[in-house]
């Protein structure tokens, strides 16, 4: 008789870890399918509907690309901060404030598009960086956990955007409720309604990946993130690095906000961030803070979110999708641990 037993290994091999990731996603979808069929729906039909309406038409693919874009920006924002050991829970707020600053430029600065657009991008990035500035300084100089401060800043930014969009910056033409007027400039489109946002996001991810592996700064950030004590010992400017990386993190989320307002939506409105900042945390964690991994997980989350929109049209609530994402995170966490185990076949003798 053979006994099958498990043994824990000190490190999980990448291939096994990846297999467990895939398995955890499939299992989450499977669990959802069971829940759906219990509630009297056909998971197969719903799944087919989601797939056909996402991948079956150029409209679906365009929507997918537009969902993918903010998720990459927010995912990269969180991932970059994680590299230096900081949890940026505030991508949501930085995204909103970046969108707000970019809108300000568009509404109040006149000039040719080729001047205004880069200016908006800059404003978005500076806005995002500003929105994380206080948590950053508090962390660097007073050792205040950025986890709480970045989170709290979100509510301020979200409410600020609601307020300007319904108050001072409300569309004066009266054509639209609760939003600013249509911005005079917009990010040029590449294909259908898809603008430069997703492409820039992909370039950004690649640039960050190269930065992490192939620059001296990337190495220093890795050391400082893993053990600030060792970084100080090697004479690295740990505080400066922490501040620089956290501001970069905010700037990336802010750029995402600018792309959203100037590319996808065209106006600043309340709730423009659509929880992208929070989902970005999940994107970054699932990607293990690897920039290229963020592209994959952001794509996957975009498919899920798009699926959620389709499901809504079938009379299900968005909570279904939130449940699926929650399940994936849960299973992925279990899978990450299980990937450390090796199955052993033992001959049962003498026992």
């Amino acid at each position, binding site marked *: 008789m053979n006994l099958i037993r498990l043994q824990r290994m000190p490190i999980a091999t990448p291939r096994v870890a990846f297999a467990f990731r895939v398995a955890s996603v499939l299992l989450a979808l499977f669990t959802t399918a069971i829940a759906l069929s219990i509630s009297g729906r056909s998971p197969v039909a719903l799944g087919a509907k989601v797939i056909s309406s996402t991948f079956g038409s150029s409209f679906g693919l365009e929507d997918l690309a537009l969902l993918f874009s903010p998720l990459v920006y927010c995912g990269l924002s969180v991932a970059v901060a994680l590299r230096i050991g900081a949890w940026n829970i505030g991508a949501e707020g930085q995204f909103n404030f970046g969108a707000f600053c970019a809108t300000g430029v568009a509404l109040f600065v006149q000039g040719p598009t080729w001047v205004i657009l880069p200016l908006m991008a800059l404003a978005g990035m500076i806005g995002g960086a500003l929105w994380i500035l206080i948590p950053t300084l508090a962390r660097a100089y007073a050792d205040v956990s950025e986890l709480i401060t970045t989170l709290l800043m979100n509510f301020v930014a979200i409410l600020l955007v609601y307020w300007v969009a319904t108050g001072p910056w409300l569309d004066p033409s009266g054509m639209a409720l609760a939003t600013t007027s249509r911005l005079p400039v917009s990010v040029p489109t590449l294909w259908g309604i898809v603008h430069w946002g997703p492409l820039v996001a992909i370039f950004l991810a690649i640039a960050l990946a190269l930065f992490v592996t192939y620059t001296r700064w990337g*190495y220093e950030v890795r050391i400082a993130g893993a*053990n600030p004590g060792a970084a100080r010992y090697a004479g*690295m400017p740990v505080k400066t690095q922490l501040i620089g990386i956290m501001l970069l993190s905010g700037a990336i989320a802010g750029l995402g906000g600018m792309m959203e307002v100037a590319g996808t939506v065209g106006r600043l409105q309340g709730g423009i961030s659509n929880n992208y900042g929070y989902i970005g945390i999940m994107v970054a964690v699932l990607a293990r803070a690897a920039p290229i991994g963020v592209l994959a997980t952001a794509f996957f989350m975009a498919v899920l979110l798009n699926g959620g929109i389709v499901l809504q049209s079938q009379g299900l609530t968005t909570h279904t999708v939130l449940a699926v994402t929650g399940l994936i995170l849960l299973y992925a966490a279990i899978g990450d641990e299980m990937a450390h185990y090796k199955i052993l076949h033992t001959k049962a003798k003498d026992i």
Partner: protein
Amino acid sequence: MARQTASIQQRLGLAPGTPPILALKGVSKYFPGVIANEDVDIDVYPGEIHALLGENGAGKSTLMNIVTGIYKMDAGEVIIEGHARDFSSPTDAIEAGIGMVHQHFKLVRAFTVAENIHLGWPQTPKRISKRHLEARTHALAQNLGLAVKPEAIVANLSTGEQQRVEILRVLARDAKLLILDEPTAVLTPKEARELFTALRAFVARGNAVIFISHKLDEVMEVSNRVTVLRGGKKVATEWTDTCTENSLAQLMVGREIVLTETQKKTAPSIKTAPILNLSDISLTTDQGTVLNNISFDLAAGEILGIAGIAGNGQRELTYVMSGLSTPSSGILTLDGEDVTKAGARTMAQMGIGHIPEDRLHSGMAPTLSITDNAVLREYAQPPLTRKGWFSPKGAANLAREIAKVADVMVPDFNMPARNLSGGNQQRLVARREMRIAEKILIAAYPSRGLDVGAINTMMRYFIELRDQGVAVVLISEELEELMNFSDRIAVMFHGEIMGIIPTKDADVEQIGLMMGGTRQEDLT
């Protein structure tokens, strides 16, 4: 063979034919590119304290990890009280009566002693009041002869007390074989004596202890028999009373030299102008004044030993000399240049290497790869970084080079550095620092966690550096080490230097007095 077995049982006062509690037969374990253990046979009988001796990397830990079910052997048998067993998890081993106390305690610091004892124990009642939990713990402690305070929070206990809790937790689970991994490394001499008494009482009840150590005097003091491993293989099992420290050291290292060679003193070769000068250095932190008016010269080509009980300012002194701390007052000059505020990076670039005392907190990033850790000092210069671009390939090459001269076997350079044994981490850090130490090497407790052979090798390297004209600052608690290797010895007490004595005139007695706060000029 039969005759020998009979004599073991006789000498331990056992009935003839008593089976060993633990018998290993031909145990082998291979890692990619590394033989961790090969063909190891060991018998451990009831009533004996069996020492397991070997250099860093000799395979002691791997072997014990096999016995306790953490690793799986590739060949051989583990026989517990006559039954062949093949553990696949530590739980199996605990059920079979094998308990291990690791070097780093596995206690929940925020819990009480009683809670820690009962945590994860099937015999803990499902519902139990705090009072009963403490009463049970008290009874257990009484039965097993280990005094603990059941209601105390673990974090508030001394290391020795924490170790007792750890041992009690293992013994409470009916362990018949207790394995201790370098248990005295964290204990004061008094605590160590108490531990030995407890161990003797434990084996007197028909149990056995495996005692891993590389302190020869302890092995001589506490063990009945001793097994020596070298390069993953068993070299010998001997009755301790037939051995001497010298004979054990020889078995362990496989060379005849060790102890005699460490005794050899080399006179300082070239005396040159002072390379580093400290003048009136003081440092005040939130702990108070930790360095007080320290002045001395460090000459190229000398080894300056710094003696003192840990916590008397040695760490802060190394921080000031390596640029990690800026002194509150005073001036530090390197080759005549004022470097008081230079900072750690500049000091390293100017040729100062620093082996820090707490390598896991400052010398390394344990979660990062061995490569990332090996290049910590040279990552910013060619060939690793050119114009800001970092070369992972160049880093891998440098890491291989350092591991090679450090004599550390690395199966995979992408593996987190925390997976290396403490001794190997220390060797890597030491080698990394020696590469950059063109002028000065500051070595804080470099022999911690190393065995006799490795300490000897490291000291030989220090002497080589010294002979090349590098100034070496050697901080140690082991007076013998300082007497053997340094040219001058400075003694620190409460952040001050009590005096600096040339080693040839030094007297252990005097240094002892100075460590206790007597100034050199007040010695009669």
